[in-house]
């Protein structure tokens, strides 16, 4: 593989840039660069170290959710439950750590298992019981939202007794400058690691291969002797696991599990995936595109905020960008 890749790259020419797959990455990446340049001119505060770190930190949760849901979207499906599954996972971590007083690492594992289990349920409903992904995951979304409120007694669970929990996201392994003046929060690191893991799973493993195959032609995949039900369930479970990780990162960032939060996050994640050039009809999609898509959304939100645009207008503009991105993608494919 290594050899072939390098062979391809040595042959870079103008033609390779016009290649649609490359053009797609170029398009999203170009849009991100343009945004960065625009906001740098629009506001002197935008391109400061602290603000850039803030953008990246605010990308983490949405980004990790997007990394999970892209697997489901490539199968041609959808998972509406990831936002509330994330919340449910963080509440489970809160219950484990604060209420039950178990160690932080147990809480993290419980959160990820919770997410995976919810995904497994969605996957089973979709693949074995043949429910429409939209309906099945809508149900799981409501159930997990309700359970989060029940378990927490509708009140936030704080991690005040375990200061180390907070460090998962806002602590920092990477510091530089005089006396660690500049530091990169761990949340960003976790996002980066999750992106690498997602890319490896999608491009190098059987699960990734069957993921594309199912999205490309599910019946043909089944006729090829692939256990489509099993792999689809696994893909939803994987998406749930990412939501579990996002739950931990989220709770650590807020130093609390907020049971009322979460709904709506799934839509931001879907938007990131789509802006990153992935088709909702399945069969194609890239991790890099998704990461860029997530950054575009948080850059836009942050930039508009720094410029002093009201929050309600930020939402309007983000929606416009989403539609524009899909339109551009359609024109490119024509």
């Amino acid at each position: 593989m290594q050899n072939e890749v390098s062979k391809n790259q040595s042959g870079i020419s103008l033609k390779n840039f016009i290649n649609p797959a490359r053009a797609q990455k170029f398009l999203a990446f170009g849009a991100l660069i343009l945004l960065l340049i625009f906001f740098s001119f629009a506001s002197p505060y935008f391109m400061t170290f602290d603000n850039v770190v803030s953008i990246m930190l605010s990308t983490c949760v949405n980004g990790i959710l997007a990394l999970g849901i892209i697997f489901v979207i490539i199968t041609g499906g959808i998972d509406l439950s990831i936002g509330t599954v994330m919340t449910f996972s963080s509440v489970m971590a809160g219950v484990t750590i604060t209420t039950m007083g178990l160690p932080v690492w147990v809480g993290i594992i419980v959160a990820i298992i919770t997410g995976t289990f919810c995904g497994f349920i969605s996957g089973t409903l979709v693949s074995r019981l043949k429910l429409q992904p939209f309906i099945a995951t809508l149900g799981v979304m409501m159930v997990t939202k309700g359970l989060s409120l029940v378990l927490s007694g509708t009140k936030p669970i704080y991690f005040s007794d375990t200061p180390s929990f907070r460090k998962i996201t806002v602590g920092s392994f990477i510091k530089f400058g005089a006396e660690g003046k500049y530091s990169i929060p761990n949340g960003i690191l976790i996002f980066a690691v999750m992106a690498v893991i997602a890319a490896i799973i999608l491009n190098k493993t059987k699960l990734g291969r069957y993921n594309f195959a199912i999205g490309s032609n599910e019946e043909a995949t089944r006729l090829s002797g692939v256990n489509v039900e099993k792999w689809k369930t696994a893909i939803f479970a994987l998406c749930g696991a990412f939501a579990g990780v996002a739950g931990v990162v989220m709770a650590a960032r807020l130093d609390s599990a907020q049971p009322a939060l979460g709904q709506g996050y799934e839509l931001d994640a879907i938007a990131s995936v789509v802006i990153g050039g992935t088709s909702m009809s399945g069969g194609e999609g890239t991790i890099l595109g998704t990461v860029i898509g997530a950054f575009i959304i948080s850059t836009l939100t942050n930039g508009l905020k720094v410029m002093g645009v009201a929050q309600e207008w930020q939402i309007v503009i983000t929606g416009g960008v989403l539609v524009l991105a899909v339109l551009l993608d359609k024109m490119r494919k024509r």
Partner: protein
Amino acid sequence: MEERLLVMEGIDKSFPGVHALDHCRFDLKAGEVHALVGENGAGKSTLMKILTGVYTKDEGKIIYKGKEIHVSGTKEAQEMGICIVHQELNLMPHLTVAQNMFIGREFTGKNKAFVNDVEANRRAQVLFDKMNLKLDPKTKVGKITVAMQQMVEIAKALSFDSSVLVMDEPTTALTESETEELFKMIKLLKEKGVGIVYISHRMEEIKRITDRITVMRDGMYVDTVNTAEVEMSQVINMMVGRTIFETANEENYTDKENVVLEVKNLNRGKAIKNVSFKLHKGEILGLSGLMGAGRTEVARAIFGADKFESGEIYVKGQKVKITKPLDAVNHGIGYLSEDRKRYGLTLSETVEQNISLASIDRYTNKLGFTNMSTITEMSQEYVNKLSIKTPSTKQKAKNLSGGNQQKVVIAKWLLRDCDILIFDEPTKGIDVGAKSEIYKLLSQLAKEGKAIIMISSELPEILRMSNRIVVMCEGRITGELDIKDATQEEIMKYATKREA
């Protein structure tokens, strides 16, 4: 008695509303090519889908290599050495050729989770070299031609160490030279002792390469005969249960004075180069050429399905602007795609919904309500006229056999009263009996004054049906022949007349 590699006995299968197989039998020896023939919906594909684990049987016994087997899935069948090349291509367009071939049995390293594409590409390349096939295993399947995709399907089946190989109309999409390559491969497999089930409607192929023929009709077993001892006309009679019309089309209703369609200097990139021709009232114009000669592209451009860069289209002497299919339909042009499942039908809708799809306006009142009973009536009339085999007009199109689906598409355009009909491979995947019905229908339409363009890869079909033949090669028109002067050799000469 010789050892039988495979015996199927008393196989019975019902689908809702259809008794697809009524206690059918079939047997296969090692190293033979056994043809399975029959009309539309005779149950050939269903029988083979039961053998290869796509469907499960209701009743009956399958004995393979001396032991009774129960196949419950395609993977199991493949692992036992029973493989099928499906009539409809079953490939994943977003994956590469090699990824498609080894789907479900990827090469993995020590860690079972990771796939090794290098090995898959290497194995695929070795197989392609053996097959004398020029194809890069790393190409995405969606980017290669239908003919090539078919070759990939065959290569995929060959890559299993199969004892039984079922080919469901493997040559439908292949050119003559590709067909020759396939026959060579079949011969090689025969020598290796593989038993091949060959489903086809092309009698000349069956005569040439098979050892025995099993005939099925209406879900029932008719007879098994030795190919060498039987005339093909006898086989056809067994298939249809009646004698059928097999003479050349001597009827010619061309009205030379009346040009209904004229295409001038049509261009689209490399696909269509400076194409000009005329079509007369009552004429059947055969559009011939090899795969990828640009015939379908021309048809789609005229129909407005694809945009063209330059050129003019005249309908009945008037210059017309066609940018979308609706424009073409409004000018009375109907197009029947070769890929009816993708472009011709809405599969999950009923027969009557399909038939009325293009003419729904006619049955709709000013308030937007459609008159369903008239639609049912009109559809029933066409179901009768074209003898479409369906329990009712409310049957879903996807439950019909390929030939009957094609008839539904024809009915759709007939109901729309199109004067110019473009048939793209009208008899692709359709059995002999239904073929002759469609031929009769084409003649009838010409007699009624319709103008017909018929694209076909089967030279006998072109020669039999056309009044005039236009031959294409690499996007250009390379020859035009009157039916009186046309021979297979003459057509092939023009079809291979490449640009210097």
